[in-house]
């Protein structure tokens, strides 16, 4: 290994290891010889120790380096071919809410309303006339009304005076409450109606105005830049199936007043809809 320290100074000059064992491992003979010559023995022993240490260290280093290579290679392989289980793990993605009432039938109507009413796509017009609904809903009036039953607690019926499209304070308050309780919904539906008092044309116009009143109030109150992308207006004239007295049980803006079938149809039903489209 070395000639640095002559730990066993002999009477004669000890030959350097390079002179004695140049480039080779000490043989058994060398070691036996070393037993006879202390100085030479030390050198041989030192050389043997050095070779042993170096051999063990080198072998270990090979093993360790090989293991490291294997670890890194394994990671590289797993990146290239991720385990099927891990690959199949679906990551939940943030999205709008999807409530249980979002049945295919409900979503079909919703989709058609949104398409026809300008919320989806590039159409400029807003709101749908009854004729549109007749065309795109493709379901009976009663079934159409029934679609909104699951929204009973999510939405509210905003009631109007006879022949009026003005929201009273109670209606505004209830509308504000419902609007602010958005949760995960994307679309806010307003379905305006009119009672059968008066002509079909007049009621249709009145229904339209009531829907617009709701829209105007929301615009004024909240100045939400996204409002136009959220609110779908639908106005139904008196030719549509009227709401029955049972709808008086729904949350409405005149809780302290007597509710008749005419009252409940002079209204706008407003609700967030927790469905994805």
């Amino acid at each position, binding site marked *: *290994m*070395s*000639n*640095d*320290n*002559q*730990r*066993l*100074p002999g009477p004669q000059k000890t030959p350097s290891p390079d002179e004695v064992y140049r480039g080779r491992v000490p043989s058994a003979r060398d070691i036996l010889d070393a037993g006879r010559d202390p100085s030479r*023995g*030390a*050198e*041989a*022993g*030192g050389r*043997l*120790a*050095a070779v*042993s*240490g*170096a051999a*063990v*260290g*080198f072998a*270990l*280093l090979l093993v*360790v*380096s090989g*293991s*490291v*290579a294997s*670890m*890194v*290679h*394994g*990671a*590289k392989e*797993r*990146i290239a071919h*991720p385990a099927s289980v*891990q690959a199949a793990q679906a*990551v*939940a*993605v*943030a*999205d*709008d*809410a999807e409530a249980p009432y979002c049945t295919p039938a409900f979503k079909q109507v919703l989709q058609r309303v949104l398409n026809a009413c300008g919320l989806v796509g590039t159409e400029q017009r807003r709101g749908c006339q009854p004729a549109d609904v007749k065309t795109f809903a493709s379901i009976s009036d009663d079934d159409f009304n029934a679609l909104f039953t699951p929204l009973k607690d999510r939405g509210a019926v905003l009631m109007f005076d006879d022949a009026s499209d003005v929201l009273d304070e109670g209606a505004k308050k209830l509308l504000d409450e419902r609007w*602010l309780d*958005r*949760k*995960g919904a994307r679309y806010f539906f307003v379905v305006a109606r009119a009672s059968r008092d008066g002509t079909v044309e007049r009621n249709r116009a009145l229904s339209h105005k009531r829907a617009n009143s709701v829209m105007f109030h929301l615009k004024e109150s909240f100045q*939400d*830049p*996204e409002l136009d992308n959220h609110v779908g207006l639908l106005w139904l004239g008196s030719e549509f199936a009227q709401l029955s007295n049972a709808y008086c049980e729904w949350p409405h803006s005149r809780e302290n007043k007597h509710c008749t079938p005419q009252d409940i149809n002079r209204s706008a039903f407003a609700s967030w809809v*927790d469905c994805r489209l």
Partner: protein
Amino acid sequence: MRAKRAALLALIAAALGLVFSAYSTYDYAVQLDRQVHAVHCSFIPGASVSTDADNPCKAALFSPFSAIFRATYWGGVPISLFGLGAFVFFVGFAVYVWVGDRRLPRSAYPTFLALTLGPLAASVVMFTISVTQLHALCKLCVGTYVASIALVAAAGLGLRANRREATPAESEGVGVGWSTPVVALAALGACAIAPALVYVDLLPDYRPLLEKCGKLAMPVDPHHGLIKIPTAHPVRAVTLFEDPLCPTCRVFHERLVDEGVFERLDVTMAMFPLDSDCNWMLDRSLHPGACVLAKAVICGGTEKGRAVLEWAYDEQDVLRELGKQGAAPLTAKISDRWGRDLATCVASKQVSVQLNQHLHFAANNHVPVSTPQMFLGDQRVCDEDTDLGLKYTLAQLAPEVLRE
């Protein structure tokens, strides 16, 4: 004979250090596939991996102190690799002194002792970091520290025994040669570096993977309700999705701050509490109370939002317990720390609407339901790149935030 026993002890210590370093290296290298893996954390070599998310070995592994050259290589080069190589050397050197015994050059034992001070010094440094920075002691690391100490002790005992056992003639040898220490030092260096060279040479090319985790489809919040967080030298726009009660968010935030990155980001923060009280995307609360604290951060606004968030991170353990008891105790705690005005704000309808807008911002962008999330501009930084690979990822995607 005592010197021989000391050499044997050194051999055992070095072997033990080798085993602990090997486990540390394995735990690190296995993360190179960018998946989530459990790590070993036991004094008993070979014990099964720990699935405990908060185990100190995991904290140490994911800390900025576990590797070097992080900006150059994904995950950096783990320091355990150098330990691994160094202990290989010491196993060899222990064999050398054990076999050589009294026939070794006089400088062998002093060299051995001197070189063992290297691992000891490294252990002292890492121990200090563990105690002062990580506030936890990783068992694998402690095993390495103990092995280093035992190695020094064995080398010291060996030196003493060797001197005692030496004959007067041996002791009176003259001249101090330098070949043994020089060769040994060179061998130690080579051994320490060799595994690291193999490691970096074989590392996969991560660059194509960095931009595969999506983008913000609608990077601008139409309501302008997200929180702007002022920083010292903002040079790169970033959007962060955070949950005040999410432990990973806390660690991530600390990492950004510790590495000096946060102050160079132009931060827009979206609150994304994983609490079903306000977040409809969950069927159960992962972090009950997070909605209340998210509102507190929003109420803090640009001026105090960061301070409120960092307070929530600092007090996270306490706040998580309070959160399980409902909103009232949390609001009281907020009031104690930040005053009644902020607590009143937290209870207001307005801030609920604002938080809802934050959540809709997430929904509009269809981001994964997880926190934390970081978007450099509109480019999402993969979750896998927010811990070990963070610095490398930033060096690739936003090098300006790493420049001083």
